[in-house]
């Protein structure tokens, strides 16, 4: 027996996985790091996804950056998630980096990739660390 705490976010009260029959989800964070030179634009960067399970991408967050940048994502089939670059202040509330939800989730197949275009906007060297939160979806035997 448990009593739901009305003040708490749902996850504090407990969220079990919601996954299809025959599969099992475990939370996983993929980390992407890049060091940009001043005003450098990098196209078609790839964050490789592990080969042991599909990755259901559910949120994105800027972990750290030393200056402003802009970014655009694509999935493993080259589907771009925006028609232009998104400036990094989009992902902040004041100085706090906020979780940017991906809804509906994007399923990247095992061994696939998340495509990234990224450009420095700070006119100075810029080290950026991003995290892609979601779950690994394992296929159960049988």
């Amino acid at each position, binding site marked *: *027996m448990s009593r*739901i705490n*009305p003040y708490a976010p749902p996850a504090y009260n407990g969220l079990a996985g919601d996954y299809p029959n025959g599969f099992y989800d475990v939370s996983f964070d993929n980390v992407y790091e890049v060091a940009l030179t001043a005003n450098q634009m990098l196209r078609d960067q790839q964050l490789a996804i592990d080969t042991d399970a599909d990755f259901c991408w559910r949120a994105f967050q800027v972990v750290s950056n030393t200056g402003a940048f802009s970014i655009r994502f694509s999935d493993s089939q080259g589907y771009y998630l925006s028609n232009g670059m998104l400036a990094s202040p989009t992902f902040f509330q004041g100085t706090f980096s906020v979780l940017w939800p991906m809804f509906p989730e994007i399923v990247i197949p095992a061994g696939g990739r998340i495509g990234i275009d990224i450009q420095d906007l700070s006119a100075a060297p810029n080290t950026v660390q991003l995290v892609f939160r979601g779950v690994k979806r394992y296929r159960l035997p049988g």
Partner: protein
Amino acid sequence: MNPMTQVAPWSHEGQTDYYDQPFAYLFDGDGLTDALSYTNLAQPLVSGSDFILRRIAGMPNIATGLRFRDRNSMNRQSQAVGFPHDYVVMPEIVYPPDAQIGFDLETVLRANNAYAVLGSVPNFFAQLAFFGVRRFWGQQAPRTAYRYHSRPYTITTDVPVTWAGRIAPLYQVLEGPRQFSVLVDTNDFELQVIHAMIQLEGAAAPIPANGHVKITLYDQNQQALSNTPVLDSYLSDCNADYNSVFPTPTLLYKANSLIRFDVTSLLIDTDIPATLTLHFIGAWRFPC
């Protein structure tokens, strides 16, 4: 970083074959060395219950990066990475009894309150907190034994914190915790949230407690709800850095029981005497 909205204010006491006790496992990194990175650290879990991990708090107080593992020692991050103050675990992770939460810390940097006394040792509060519930199979949670209706209520108490984190005059040896309690009289009380405010020596007004004390909270059976004292900001709801809501799930104190708590000071000599004000926010259960 919390992407979720608040849920509607309702509660349930459905019959299940287990009891979930809100609980926090704290890893104290006070003995680590700044600027070093550590791999294969572990927080052991006690026997007698599963532990279901739902929230990780406090990485910025101990290191610049973290990677943790599940019951099967599988990494849950592709590499150590900076965590937000609060990290929600979705889906929740179940650890069996006697398991451990394994993790790596990248570039340790221990949060502390330092004295201006030569030769003193700072009051460290480099805590990594794993919040969730201990699940006791085959047990039932305490229930209110009468028909009731709930009315919101807050029990407040002032705690004089007259001692620093370490013993004067050298401030090298740690002070111990001190025990306090509040009587829950008349009716059952459902505790939902804790607010901790503190007024330091010479301050004009109280401020939200944030690195000032550690607290061990006990349930009505005098069972501690953490393995060691918990930093105020990880418990207190009125904190700018953390989205702390403890206890989750809520906790029932029956009539004539005690809300017991131990306070460990993290204050320095110039902060004392101080007054810690705790608000135990919840609801009375009035018979009807």
